[in-house]
């Protein structure tokens, strides 16, 4: 029994668990996979079994949505135990090839999508944007932190482009990092690759601190969460774009001239809602668009359903007995007659859009980022 394993009990305060079951009860994937996160809180107290337990395939089913932690009456974070177990597997090199490739790509090129660094700014090639110089004399108000997925995924790219359109319309003084921008490491940490995450933390903090800006605005809730809560030593505050846009609207800096006469609903991303309590700003923005008829999901805000895009799930294949949660979400949206499912996260966008295709409703229902909706109304 080595000291490192002993740490497991202490590190995750396993002895504080009263086995109430709220974690599994809230876990969105429990109903469709074998994951019973509560059992891990108990089983991993036996250090001798850690190896064996880390072999269980269901540890890769966790989307790191954080529901289990939000619901735990004892302030524990069950998902972290799963991440700890993933670390053991990563250390042993026992990972799916897709995961391995993503991690390697981050190490080499600063993004998980296997794309070269040189193409990082391609999404903005047609746009007139300022790339920030480190240690500049002049202060720029906002530094945009663009998620790797927004940079390289042809679909999600449009969201980043919409952001630029919106910021230009509001006359915001902003700048981009450019080719030096690297993955925030949110998924890296959640896949259990602690060492690589430490590197992301150190290098990005150094890079970000080198710019003369008032604040950082992240386009993805995953980057936002990591920069804000998991990095060490950032000097300026971090905002999610919904916070900035809500502020622009409130201060009258952004006008929305056009109408969008559609029934719109909003899906709360776990990393924005449950993990950072940002519920009102997205709704504020959507309901300010003229013509929009806004409808809530029954399961909304604190009770929102995870889309299963987080926690490295973009690269992990797992067995599923039941319908995917994104599909349930799209069905619910269809039932309430929503024409647009608005999101504020690149992963939600991809998973939900995919689900509209599986459900065959892609003709009648669009999945759009709030930014795209807004850009359409400008």
């Amino acid at each position: 029994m080595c000291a490192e394993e002993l740490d497991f009990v202490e590190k995750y305060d396993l002895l504080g668990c009263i086995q109430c079951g709220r974690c599994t009860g809230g876990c969105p994937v429990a109903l469709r996979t074998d994951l019973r996160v509560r059992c891990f809180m108990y089983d991993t107290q036996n250090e001798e079994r850690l190896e064996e337990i880390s072999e269980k395939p269901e540890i890769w089913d966790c989307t790191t949505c954080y529901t289990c932690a939000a619901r735990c009456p004892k302030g524990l974070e069950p998902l972290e135990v799963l991440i700890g177990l993933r670390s053991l597997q990563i250390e042993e090199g026992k990972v799916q090839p897709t995961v391995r490739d993503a991690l390697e790509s981050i190490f080499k090129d600063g993004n998980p999508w296997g794309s070269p660094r040189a193409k990082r700014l391609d999404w903005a090639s047609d746009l007139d944007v300022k790339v920030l110089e480190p240690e500049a004399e002049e202060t720029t108000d906002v530094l945009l932190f663009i998620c790797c997925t927004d940079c390289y995924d042809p679909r999600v790219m449009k969201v980043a482009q919409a952001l630029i359109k919106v910021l230009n319309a509001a006359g915001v003084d902003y700048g981009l990092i450019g080719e030096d921008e690297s993955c925030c490491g949110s998924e890296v940490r959640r896949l259990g690759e602690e060492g690589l995450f430490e590197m992301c933390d150190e290098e990005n903090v150094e890079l970000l601190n080198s710019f003369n800006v008032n604040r950082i605005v992240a386009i993805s809730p995953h980057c936002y969460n990591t920069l804000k809560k998991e990095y060490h030593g950032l000097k300026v505050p971090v905002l999610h774009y919904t916070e900035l846009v809500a502020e622009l609207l409130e201060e009258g800096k952004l006008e929305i001239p056009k109408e969008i006469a559609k029934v719109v609903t909003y899906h709360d991303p776990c990393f924005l809602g449950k993990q950072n309590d940002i519920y009102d700003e997205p709704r504020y923005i959507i309901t300010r668009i003229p013509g929009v008829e806004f409808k809530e999901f029954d399961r909304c805000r604190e009770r929102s359903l995870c889309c299963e895009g987080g926690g490295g799930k973009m690269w992990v294949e797992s067995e599923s007995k039941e319908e995917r949660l994104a599909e349930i979400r799209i069905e619910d949206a269809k039932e309430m007659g929503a024409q647009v499912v608005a999101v504020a996260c690149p992963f939600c966008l991809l998973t939900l859009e995919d689900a509209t295709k599986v459900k065959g409703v892609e003709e009648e229902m669009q999945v759009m980022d709030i930014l795209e909706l807004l850009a359409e109304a400008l």
Partner: protein
Amino acid sequence: MNGKPRIGVYVCHCGTNIAGTVDVEEVVKFAETLPDVTVARNYSYMCSDPGQALIVDDIEKAGLNRVVVASCSPRMHEPTFRKTLLSGGLNPYFLEMANIREQCSWVHPDPIAATEKAKRLVEAAVVKSRRLEPLDAKEVDVEPSCLIIGAGIAGIQSALDIADAGFKVYLVEKEPSVGGHMIQLDKTFPTLDCSACIMTPKMVDVANHPNIELMTYSQVEEIGGYIGNFDIKVRKKSRFVDIDKCTGCGICAEECRMAGRFPNEFDENMGMRGAIYMPFPQAVPAKYTIDKESCLFLTKGKCGESPKCKDACQAGAVNFDLEDEIVEFKVGTIIVATGYDVFDARLKPEYAYGVYDNVLTALEFERLVNASGPTGGKVTMIERGKKKKKKGAEEEAPKVPESITFIQCVGSRDKSVGNEYCSRVCCMYTAKLAHLVKDKVGHDCEVTVFYMDVRAFGKGFEEFYDRVRREGVKYIRGNPSEIYKKGDKLIVKAEDTLTSTPLEHETDMVVLSVGLVPRRDNREIIDLLKLSQTSDLFYMEAHPKLRPVDTASDGVYLAGVCQGPKDIPDAVAQAKGAASAAMIPMASGKVKVEAQTSFVNEDTCRGCGFCVELCPYTAIELVEVNRMGWPVKVARVNEALCKGCGACAAACLSGSIQQRSFKDWQLLPQIEALGVK
């Protein structure tokens, strides 16, 4: 007695607690060498009778006039040894204690170092004992009357006991009626007594008792003074109904233009009332009250042609000119019995309370099963905020739920909402309500209880729990995480932790077994009485085990849930305890007050008021005195209020406040003897 000091030093073994680490023989030998020490001894247990007899004997035979006991903390046995000195004929304040247990043997593992430290502590105590002065413990008279704040079951029980014993009681209740939460309940666990049936006789008794002055719809505004002599000011809020004239007939309420327009707080806002109302039929006093926030006449200055209530009242009781009344009186003791609030279920948004009509709190459900409640005791699905249909219009009969699900521990044992404690009553009231469903709705109604532990610790509780399970109530071990809807049904999402099965449990109605929390207006009483709170924010008792009804303030006692969650029998037991504690000073008519108080040298005091701010007992005030023809402000200590904590003396910048037995010239040499220069 004040001649040359003749000091006796007594070193206690405390079994092996001290002697296991400290070489007590050596400490005694050392003490013998100190100047003025006449005798030095060690003994296994100094606090025992023979131990104390040693001291008494030496006082008589060796002519001791100072005693040093080296033993445990003075918090434990200072009172014991003071009595020993007294029985030996010495002034009790000629005692000095050296704490060689908590501050020495218990914390130092090394015997040699511990023995050295013990010697130092003893030497310092000897040095101080030489400079001790005799003090007189003063006595004050006690008013034979008691103020009780809050008229729930606890306050009512204390009031009746004290009044029956022949003392005057002032019972002050905020609401229009006495009764508190107990009168809202239907049946009580585990015996299933009808709550109102056992409560109303007591409510009527407090109203009629010759020794009780009941003030309802009233609030304590000021409390001054100290044990024996508290000065109380109470505001009796105007009801705009002359309660001497009101016969309680209720015609006004029927006629009120706003009848049925406002949620009735007593029914947990599920039933409706008018602007003039009686909260429930058995209210005591059975008088009507106009709520000035909802009355047309009082908010708009106009109620139709003329106020309908006033026109309707044959007794002429409605009177809009009535004003709040301030009453002042003196009492000797005070009991706080202000009870609790239930946990606000909105703080757990995952349960969607406030989103779905048929997610109820248990207290709402108590009203729903109660014959005097909004549905006359019929358990039906509810539609919140529904306007009453016009008279004569067809009312659709509300649906009866086919299944009801209870969730335990809502807002208790839950760090995420800051309540780490168990509320102690919800397991049992859940079992009670589950039984009532089977009883009233019928056996076909499916009843499920989600729990994490069932705590059935009281008399008859486990037996009751057994009975309820056999009645077909299904207990599932797992605390639910979320409530949402599928079609008409509510879904309770949980894990059956005994089989590791995640569930989407379908049900018509969910009852949240909300915990008991400190009242949201707790501060009112804290500010009036300087009460402390335990970490759970309930009021703090003087000692968690041995003084459960006292507070840190003499003459102020606690009863009922305001001190911590408890059920009715425990609240009653504590209320009786508080009554008896309050009667001790009232019966003896006198109380001793602290002798080691602070006093001010008015010639040097600069009147900065620093001490006034610091004193936690508000014992110091600034007064104007004449200093050589000039009026100046100086601090003055009210010795009856001073508890001798010493905060002022330690803080005074000019050294003008000194505390008896801890004056600078007594304390500084003691510190010096410890090696601090």
